[in-house]
């Protein structure tokens, strides 16, 4: 599971050639909303040439192509990326009714069958399970800006307006063991706001969070790493379980049973994975 997905515009060389120095677990090279229509071809050519000549270290590379409905752009995106060493694509305006065609197009272009589905319309949240169930879908990503625009409400730092979408996405992704990726925090210089938002995403069950600025990566990793206290408690739970040869006991006045032991084990695995990165 990747904790951070950093968006990088596909038409800016100085960002492309530094994509593996920002410490993000994954980057998303953007061909869609972050690129002006006049610059789409430049983004395609720059990205293709960059991926052809430069090996990227320790970072998964995705491209947010244009939406399936933007047929000409979508086809040109895939044609230009054909054979490129990508981890996968991010599919905007994802909907289950397009997935068969998208998978066919990916096959034709010789691209990996790894789709991060971007959910950004109110309707698609009622199809989230269908998206998560599809074998080519590796994760679900919440698109908060387009969603709130469609809902006709402002984005707030508290995020109440996207709570239903967040929870729906997490439940669907977890039902099929897929990545659940939270929407980016869009205020660049509000560090407290970012930390609060990322902690909330972690608490809701997201496995990672997207970012629109490299400065956000560190704080996202902090928020998604288990705390020292949580690690210590998990270690004590596992030690006691091992000592008692039981998954049912009391610790600090709280009942511990099998789900709690398994959660402790999962938390320690996540902590170990965070330390390795």
């Amino acid at each position, binding site marked *: 599971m990747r904790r951070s997905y950093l968006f990088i515009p596909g038409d*800016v*060389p*100085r960002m492309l050639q530094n994509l593996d120095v920002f410490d993000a677990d994954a980057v998303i090279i953007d061909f869609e909303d972050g690129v002006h229509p006049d610059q789409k*071809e430049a983004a395609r*050519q*720059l990205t*293709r*040439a*960059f991926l052809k*000549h430069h090996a990227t270290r320790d970072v998964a590379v995705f491209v947010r192509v244009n939406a399936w409905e933007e047929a000409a752009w979508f086809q040109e995106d895939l044609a230009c990326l054909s054979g490129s060493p990508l981890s996968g694509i991010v599919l905007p305006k994802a909907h289950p009714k397009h997935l068969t065609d998208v998978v066919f197009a990916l096959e034709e272009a010789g691209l990996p069958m790894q789709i991060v589905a971007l959910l950004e319309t109110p309707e698609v949240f009622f199809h989230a399970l269908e998206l998560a169930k599809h074998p080519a879908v590796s994760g679900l990503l919440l698109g908060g800006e387009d969603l709130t625009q469609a809902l006709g409400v402002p984005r707030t730092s508290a995020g109440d307006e996207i709570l239903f979408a967040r929870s729906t996405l997490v439940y669907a992704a977890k039902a099929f063991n897929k990545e659940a990726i939270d929407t980016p925090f869009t205020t660049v210089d509000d560090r407290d706001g970012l930390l609060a938002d990322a902690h909330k995403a972690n608490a809701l069950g997201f496995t990672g969070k997207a970012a629109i600025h490299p400065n956000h990566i560190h704080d996202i990793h902090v928020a998604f790493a288990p705390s020292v206290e949580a690690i210590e408690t998990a270690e004590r739970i596992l030690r006691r379980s091992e000592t008692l040869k039981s998954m049912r006991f009391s610790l600090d006045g709280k009942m511990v049973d099998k789900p709690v032991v398994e959660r402790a084990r999962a938390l320690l695995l996540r902590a170990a994975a965070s330390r390795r990165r």
Partner: protein
Amino acid sequence: MKKVTVGTLESSDCQITLSPATHRHVVIDSVVQAVFGEAIEAVIHRVLDQAGLDSVRVDVIDKGALDYAIEARLKTAIKYYEEAADEKELSIHTG
């Protein structure tokens, strides 16, 4: 045929202008001209050769772009340049 310009003057990028000429003519203005001028010119000629483009003037203002960026910017410029040529031919045929 129209003049076509692509790219930016930001760091690590370059701006490339293609315009009609009777033969291939490459002009490079680079912040790293002394060290990389020949390498930049080699990239330009390789891409022009691949495109089979000879009657063209190429003006490059380089701000420290790597080879991949120069190649990509030039390929984009050639695409737009050839599209502009096609549009002109179409207007001649239909005019």
